[in-house]
């Protein structure tokens, strides 16, 4: 029980991950698959961000001159690295989504539908 309370952030992300993953491989609608992919990525982003949290610390922006003179109190500042990584990951996610949407438009142009079953049916003909 303690396990769950102390680490509930992991539980949340895993649940989100499962939702996304299920949508990616289980749904028959191509757009839903894409949405699943986004949920999956969000789950990972949450994991990273939650790893950066330190209780009782604030955002990683310091006063320049004060910092140069006195140094920075490490404990008071949140870990900036996951934020950096996730900025990158978000951008990558956007890029993939954009390309995927473009491809979906092409598919729609070709088959007039985005349901996998219907497309397969048309291909079968």
């Amino acid at each position: 029980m303690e396990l769950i309370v102390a680490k509930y952030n992991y539980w949340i992300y895993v649940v989100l991950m499962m939702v996304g993953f299920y949508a990616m491989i289980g749904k028959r609608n191509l757009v839903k698959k894409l949405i699943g992919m986004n949920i999956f990525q969000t789950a990972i982003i949450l994991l990273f961000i939650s790893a950066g949290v330190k209780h009782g610390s604030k955002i990683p922006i310091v006063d320049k001159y004060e910092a140069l003179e006195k140094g920075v109190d490490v404990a008071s500042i949140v870990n900036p690295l996951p934020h950096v990584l996730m900025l990158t990951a978000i951008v990558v996610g956007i890029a993939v989504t954009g390309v995927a949407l473009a491809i979906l438009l092409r598919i729609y142009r070709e088959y007039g539908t985005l349901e996998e079953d219907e497309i397969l049916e048309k291909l079968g003909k």
Partner: protein
Amino acid sequence: MKALALVASLVTGAILLYGTMDFPAWGDPQSPAATHLATYFIENAVEETHVPNLVTAVLGDYRGYDTMFETVVIYCAGLAVISVLRRSRKP
């Protein structure tokens, strides 16, 4: 198919949860993630780059190489969308 997908995602989730057993608790200031690299960045970034926003400092300089490719990624995406969607025009 759907049942298979459900099982697959449940199994994946279970494995991931199993992996979290070793993890530090949420917000633990002593966790490896919060101590190893992070300490260095917090202590030295301002001094070494004169940028008070640590995220920007790390993003633009320490991990500038990453960021460069991040830009390339988004550039690629734009390019890919154009090349996928635009129809060939007669010159």
